[in-house]
């Protein structure tokens, strides 16, 4: 059956699309085009001397070992944030879906972190884990663990992952909860009558029915960990120790806005753009096939 609606007019669809196209053009295509142009240039901070350098900015990046290391860092960080963020949120949503008493309170508390700005999140976590005055550092010390994210790269990575996951759990939780409530109760009851235990019911009924939500969240969380986490990193580790927590997007921010090196920063954002486009295509091509709508 053909579901498409056909317009007879040739101009009407364009007029209706215009506001959307305008917004996409101004806020996506124009800046992306600027980044592409600037990545081929070298300019001083004031833009008064601009020289075309071809692919020099990219060549410098490939020659920089620390840039290559940042790919690995970003990958580890994104996978950890996405996997942990999704699984913890799912667990919480499943529990929230079951309780009857005080459900609103429970949900509200879980959604709260979403209202906290990323910089504040970063500050909160870095205070709790501060090597001098951190309360968690103090507890860990009593357990015999010497916490020092200033010098230990693994500790630093753990810190930014925790902060980023904490910030994103609310969002994931909301979507999972909505997904769970929309699953017809009759399906679950039928399975229960057939003798399926809670774990089996979750595994064979709820989870497959949640897969569109999970897939959507997977894409959103990947993008979140790639792009929206630099404020958290800036407030906690600033990419240190060494460059152990300098993800790709943090470097774009640092080299461009702190270092005023616009050419390199633009080249890095082009690389990042290509990566995210590729990742999204892969996700839609391969993972989406396993999703039941």
């Amino acid at each position, binding site marked *: 059956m053909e579901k498409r609606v056909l317009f007879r007019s040739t101009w009407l669809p364009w007029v209706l699309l215009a506001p959307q196209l305008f917004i996409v053009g101004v806020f996506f295509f124009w800046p992306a085009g600027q980044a592409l142009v600037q990545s081929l240039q070298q300019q*001083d901070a004031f833009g008064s001397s601009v*020289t075309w350098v071809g692919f020099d900015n990219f060549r410098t990046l490939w020659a920089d070992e620390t840039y290559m290391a940042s790919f690995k860092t970003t990958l580890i960080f994104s996978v950890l944030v996405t996997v942990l963020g999704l699984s913890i949120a799912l667990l919480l949503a499943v529990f929230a879906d079951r309780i009857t008493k005080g459900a609103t309170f429970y949900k509200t508390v879980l959604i709260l972190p979403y209202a906290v700005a990323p910089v504040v999140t970063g500050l909160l976590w870095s205070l709790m884990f501060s090597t001098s005055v951190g309360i968690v550092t103090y507890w860990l010390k009593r357990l015999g663990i010497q916490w020092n994210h*200033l010098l230990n790269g693994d500790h630093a990575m753990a810190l930014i992952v925790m902060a980023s996951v904490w910030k994103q759990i609310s969002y994931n939780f909301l979507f999972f909860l909505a997904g769970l409530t929309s699953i017809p109760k009759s399906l679950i009851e039928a399975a229960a009558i057939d003798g399926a235990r809670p774990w089996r019911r979750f595994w064979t009924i709820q989870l497959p029915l949640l897969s569109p939500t999970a897939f959507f969240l997977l894409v959103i969380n990947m993008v979140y960990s790639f792009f929206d986490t630099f404020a958290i990193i800036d407030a906690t580790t600033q990419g240190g120790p060494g460059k152990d927590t300098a993800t790709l997007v943090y470097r774009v921010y640092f080299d461009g806005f702190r270092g*005023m*090196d616009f050419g390199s920063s633009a080249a890095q954002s082009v690389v990042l753009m290509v990566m995210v486009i590729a990742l999204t295509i892969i996700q839609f091509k391969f993972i989406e096939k396993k999703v039941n709508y």
Partner: protein
Amino acid sequence: MKLKLAALAFAAAFSLSAQAQTEIQWWHSMDGALNDWVTDLAKQFNTSQTAYKVIPTYKGEYDQSVAAGIAAFRAGNAPDILQVFEVGTATMMYSKGAIKPVAEVMKEAGAKFDPSVYIPAVAGYYTAPNGQMLSLPFNSSTTVFYYNKDAFKAAGLDPEKAPTTWPEVVSIAAKLKATGSQCPFTTSWMTWAQLESFSTWHNTSYASKNNGFGGLDARLEFNSPLHVRHFENLGNMSKQGLFVYKGRASKPISSFTSGECAMFVGSSGSYASITRDAKFKFAESTLPYYPDVPGAPQNTIIGGASLWVFSGKPVEHYKGVAAFFNFLSDPKVQSASHMRTGYLPITTAAFKLTDESGFYKKNPGTDVAVNQMIRKTTEKSRGVRLGNFVQIRAIMDEETEQIWAGKKTAKQALDDGVKRGNELLAKFQAANK
């Protein structure tokens, strides 16, 4: 309240147009108590005459206000005056046609302006190779040594005697550690204090071409035997728990004010906040040095910021800027600012005025920073002027962290830092040809 404000703004707008005052926009990075200071300076100037009105606006931290100023310039509406931190000096200086040298502004407006009244280490930092002063020194600080007198007493040390050399720091740190100190020594501003200031204090080259003052083709040289020796020393202290790394930039200060760390290298501009936060007796002293190095101690390097004037403004604006700068250069104003904020007095006259007022006798230690600076500078100690300096500092934070983590030797870290930094310098040179 809102209505009242609106009414006020309305009235202000009217009275302005009536008097035809020229408004001078001043973007700065002074927050908290320092914001009040800046606002008071503008108010004082505005009430002293009627032709001009200086409007100070807080634009975020140093790097943010520089970014904002540059973005505004690119968009064609730069402020008249922009406060730029010392590491941004080269960026501003080599910008073609974006700025108007202060010496020129003053000369065209017919204002008296004598660069020689400034403390040499301050003025030298902001002067072009041809001797022209490019920006007006505003708030300058330097690196000094602080120690916890109570902790010294508790460890059986003489609280009135600060260590003056690095070997003394090591032996005192060992005594503090032996009596239970968790953190005998730490430093903030690793690069500014332990590389830049360390170099000028020992009259040793930081970069070629007189630390970059001689031109854009300067390259880093801070992997000399003396630098390696210092970082090996710090590395050993770190291994023995005598030096504890507490993070980048100014972050380590809380570990001193909380009483955790007994000795601390930090900015002289932190004096006021340490006085406010520390629940113990402390003292300020000169930076330690290696006594066997000829020429040490020389002078330390400045931090802080200066005021830059953007080009392309109407003549009236420049006259106003000149009048305002003239007001700021008054020794009385400078001395008052020095006593209020803890920043350096900037001119020798202001230093003398403050001395005569008996301020240093009442607040012992506040003259340490001045004494470290008020010396005749050498080619190697005048300052550091390099492009991409913000990133070079970040690189050195990263590399030195590898020493404390035990992943690299001091020599390796400094060599790698020089190599990575030089790539950035070559890039800056190419971009600013």
